[in-house]
Each structure stands twice: as structure tokens, then as C-alpha cells.
């Protein structure tokens, strides 16, 4: 019916307004993608300064992978690689912890009495509403107050804070869909709670956990505000804070351009593959 409605609506409209509507969307997209295109275009030139074109070359990609700038005969800033390393470590560990913590929490919250459930759901929503600067500052004050010196551990803890609520939210709908009796049935048949969790509930919750994990990964990689306040001054940098420090100095490490071009293209390809797959599945079910 929806399809039919759409058609009828389109038929009502003149060709002109249809083209105008389409043009508007594409215009927005062009503006939205212009800076990214700029990054990609300038990843194919060697110039140190972003915005100067000094001829087409794959030089920066070479530098990025070899870690050595053959033209200027200097090493590519080693802090860049450390930043990449720590970004990955922080993202993976905080996503992992969040997924475990969040899944357990979701199961717990689901089986709570109404009042407790409301309290926890409210608490769960705080880190999602809180802007990153406030999360960052509040944790900064906490670590200072408790005399914990800031570093990798505090950054991971901080990332778990803002990732876990999303895991809870993505696991929750799975629980509502699940047959509530199978866990009890497993226990009655002599399984320990851990076994019941692993053998009976986990298979049902996997999709929610995976999407929570992936969401946590992306949130963690993209985060700047919270990391900025919790990383301390031990020289720990993630890509975000590295870029910020770079930008404040005015010069952007040139190898960031190919790095993010590659990240962008990877994601683009992944999305396209996912889209094709879901499309095929839809066709099959039809």
C-alpha cells in the first residue's frame, strides 16, 4: 500500500518539482562531501601543507605504510603510529568491556522490578544525554579527586562509560523478543546459570551484542571530548587528540590525508557490501 501511495503522490507532482527536490538533495550531499573529497584529492599529492597541489603522486600512501618519507628523507611522525595503535587498543578493549557489562546489565534490568528498572534505565540514559565535555570534565574531576593518575586505564574506563548504555539499548530488544521461559527450562534441566547463559541465552542475544560492540567501536574511535580530558599528560594520544594537537599548531601531518581516505573508502565498501547482502536476502524472502 505504501508503494502505491508513493506512486500516486509522485504522479501528482510535476516533473519540475521532482527535479527540484532531487537537485536539493544532491546539492546538500555535494556540500556534505566536499571536505571529504578535498581530503581524498589532496592525499594524492606530496605537499606538506594541506591545500597546496604539487603534482599527482602516491607518495603519501607510501610514506604512511613505510613510515619513512623518501622525498624529505625524514621519518613519518612516530606519534601518528602510536596514536593509531592506542586508538585501536582503546576502541577494542572498551568495546569488549562494554559489551560484556552491557549485556549482563540488559539481562539484569529486564528482570528487575519496575521501580529498580526505571532507576537503572534513567542512569543508563545519563551518559547518552551528557555532552562529551561534561562527561570528560566530571571524570577528570573524579580521577583528580581520587588521586588516580590519568592514562590508558582512565581513558578506557571513560570510554566504557559512554559506550555501555548503547550496548544495553541494542541488547534490550532481543530480550523482549526472546522466549522468557527457556532460561528457566535450562536451569530445571540441570544447567548452571553460567551454562544457561552461554548455551541458551547467548545465541539469542548475539545480534544485539554484535551491533552494540560495533556501535561502541565507532563511538570510541570517534570520541574526542572525553579522551581529551581523561588522557592525562603522559603523552597518550588517540587519533582525535593527535589531530587536535596538530591543528592547533597549524600544520596537519600530511600522512593523515591518505589514512582517512583509506578509512573512508573501507567504510564505503563495507556499507555497499552490507547493502547488497540485505538486498539479496530481501529478494530471497520475497
Amino acid at each position, binding site marked *: *500500500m*505504501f508503494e502505491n501511495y*508513493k*506512486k500516486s*503522490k*509522485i504522479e*501528482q507532482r510535476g516533473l519540475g518539482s521532482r527535479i527540484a*527536490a*532531487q537537485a*536539493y*538533495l544532491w546539492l546538500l550531499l555535494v*556540500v*556534505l562531501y566536499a*571536505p*571529504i573529497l*578535498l*581530503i581524498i584529492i589532496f592525499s594524492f599529492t606530496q605537499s606538506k601543507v*594541506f*591545500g597546496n597541489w604539487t603534482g599527482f603522486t602516491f607518495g603519501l600512501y607510501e610514506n604512511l605504510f613505510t613510515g619513512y618519507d623518501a622525498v624529505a628523507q625524514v621519518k613519518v611522525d612516530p606519534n601518528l603510529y602510536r596514536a593509531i595503535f592506542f586508538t585501536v587498543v582503546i576502541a577494542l578493549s572498551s568495546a569488549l568491556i562494554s559489551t560484556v*557489562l*552491557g549485556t*549482563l*546489565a540488559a539481562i*539484569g*534490568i*529486564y*528482570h*528487575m522490578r519496575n521501580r*529498580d528498572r526505571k532507576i*537503572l534505565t534513567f*542512569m543508563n540514559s*545519563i551518559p547518552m*544525554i551528557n*555532552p*562529551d*565535555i*561534561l562527561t570528560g*570534565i*566530571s*571524570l*577528570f*574531576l*573524579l580521577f583528580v579527586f581520587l588521586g588516580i593518575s590519568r592514562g590508558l586505564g582512565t581513558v578506557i574506563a571513560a570510554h*566504557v*562509560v559512554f559506550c*555501555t548504555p548503547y550496548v544495553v539499548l541494542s541488547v534490550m530488544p532481543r530480550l523482549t523478543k526472546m522466549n522468557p521461559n527457556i532460561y528457566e527450562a535450562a536451569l530445571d534441566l540441570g544447567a548452571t*546459570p553460567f551454562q544457561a547463559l552461554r548455551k541458551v541465552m547467548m545465541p539469542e542475544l548475539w545480534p544485539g551484542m554484535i551491533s552494540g560492540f560495533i556501535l561502541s567501536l*565507532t563511538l570510541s574511535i*570517534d570520541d*574526542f571530548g572525553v579522551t581529551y580530558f581523561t588522557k592525562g599528560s603522559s603523552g597518550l594520544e588517540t587519533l*582525535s587528540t593527535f*589531530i*587536535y594537537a596538530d*591543528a592547533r599548531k597549524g600544520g*596537519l601531518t600530511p600522512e593523515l590525508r591518505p589514512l582517512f581516505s583509506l*578509512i*573512508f573508502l573501507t567504510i564505503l565498501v563495507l*556499507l555497499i557490501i552490507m*547493502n547488497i547482502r540485505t*538486498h539479496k536476502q530481501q529478494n530471497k524472502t520475497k
Partner: protein
Amino acid sequence: MVFQSRSTWAWPYALFMLCLVILPLVLIGVYAFTDADGSFTIQNFVSFFTKSEAINTFIYSLAIALITTIICLLLGYPAAYIMAMADFKTPQVMAMLFILPMWINFLLRTIATVELFRMFGLPLGEGALLFGMVYDFLPFMIYPIYNTLQKMDTSLIEAAHDLGAKRHQVFLKVTLPLSVPGIYSGIVMVFMPTVSTFAIAELLTHNKVTLFGSLIQRCFGEGGIAMWNYGAALSLIMLIIIGLTSFFGGDKEDINR
């Protein structure tokens, strides 16, 4: 055994949240109402309301955030509407295209925007700031509106058509009111990050414009010792703004459901 009852499985999380969410927020309050020696004072708030530069920066940031939100709404609603109504073979792809840029680090995108302004010879400043903010947060506006519009019960619109309503009447009387929840969450999702943003303003204006977020950030960096408490006071004020926004936003959403 304790773990037999599954409600206990949330206890580690509850404890974690208590230590790393509730306690830190309480600490903001504690620091806000104490001086550097730890004794009670309201001086931090007094100086916020009496220092022209602090209160002006606050109002200025509110205004910038509001303008950004309004521009996002004006640009985003038509886009969401077109996407939801038009017959694309794959409307999901279109929605995806709007979200994809968010996968690139926002600071890097901002720097690229600065470069873009340079290329066209445009000056950095307030205009660049607004452009950059709209650019960064537009997807947050489009997506929720698109979602509500797409899930909307279309039979209502058909009914309106059948009953002889004109197109603009249908839009004003049916579509728009039905999309209000999406608009609200879009507004909340754009307003909250814009009012608290701190790094982009610096990059987009060559540090010429100070936003409330940057002011807070500075209290925990440059200002030195006494400023932590002042910064906490400013954070508390921002927390109140955020609380109010989400309260009204959430409230309205519930009513419309």
C-alpha cells in the same frame, strides 16, 4: 545462590555507573560550590553572573547553538521529507549517504572545511563557524525526522487526500504534526552538542570566537589553580541547560506518542 536471580546481573553495571557517572556529576557540584581550599562558597557563580565576558559568552553560545539548530531544521526537514516521500529505488541508501561522512573524524572534517573556505577566499569567523556547525550536525537533524516520516501511518495522508484536502493542507494538518516527535528529537540532538562544543570553534575562527565550551575547557587548562572550581561552576550551568533541554525534549516526545 545469588546469581540465580537474574536481576542481580545488573549489579556490576549499577555499581560501575554509580562510581563513574553519578559520583563524577556530584563532584562537579562539589567543586562548583567550593573554593580552591575546599571551603564552601558561591563566589564561582557570583563571578559568572557579574563578569560580563562570562555571561556574554554564555548567551552568545546559546544564540549560536539556536541559530545552528534552526538552520539545520530548515535545511534538514525538506531533505528528510523528500527522502521519505520520493520513490528512490533504495531510500535506505540515500539515508546512508547522509550518515556516511560522520565516519570521518569530525576534527579532520572541520580542518578540511577550513581549507575549503580558504580555497574560495572566504574569511574565517562567525560565518565559517555557523557553516561548520551546521555541516557537522545536519545528519543528526535529518535522521530522526526521516525516521518518523518513514514510519508514519500513510493511510492518514491518503484519507486526507480522499477527503479532498489540498497538498499544502495535507502537509500542514497531517504530515507536519505527525512528524513533530522527529523534529523534537532532531532539535535536541543538534542543540545539545552545539551548545557544548569546544574544539571546532577554535579551528573555524582562528580562535577569534570563544564559545561556552571553550571557556570551560580553558578553565581546566590555562587558567591555573583557582579555575577548576570556576570551571566546575560553568559545567554545572551547562549541565542544567542540558538537563532542561532533554527534559523538555523527552517530555514532548512522550506526549506525542
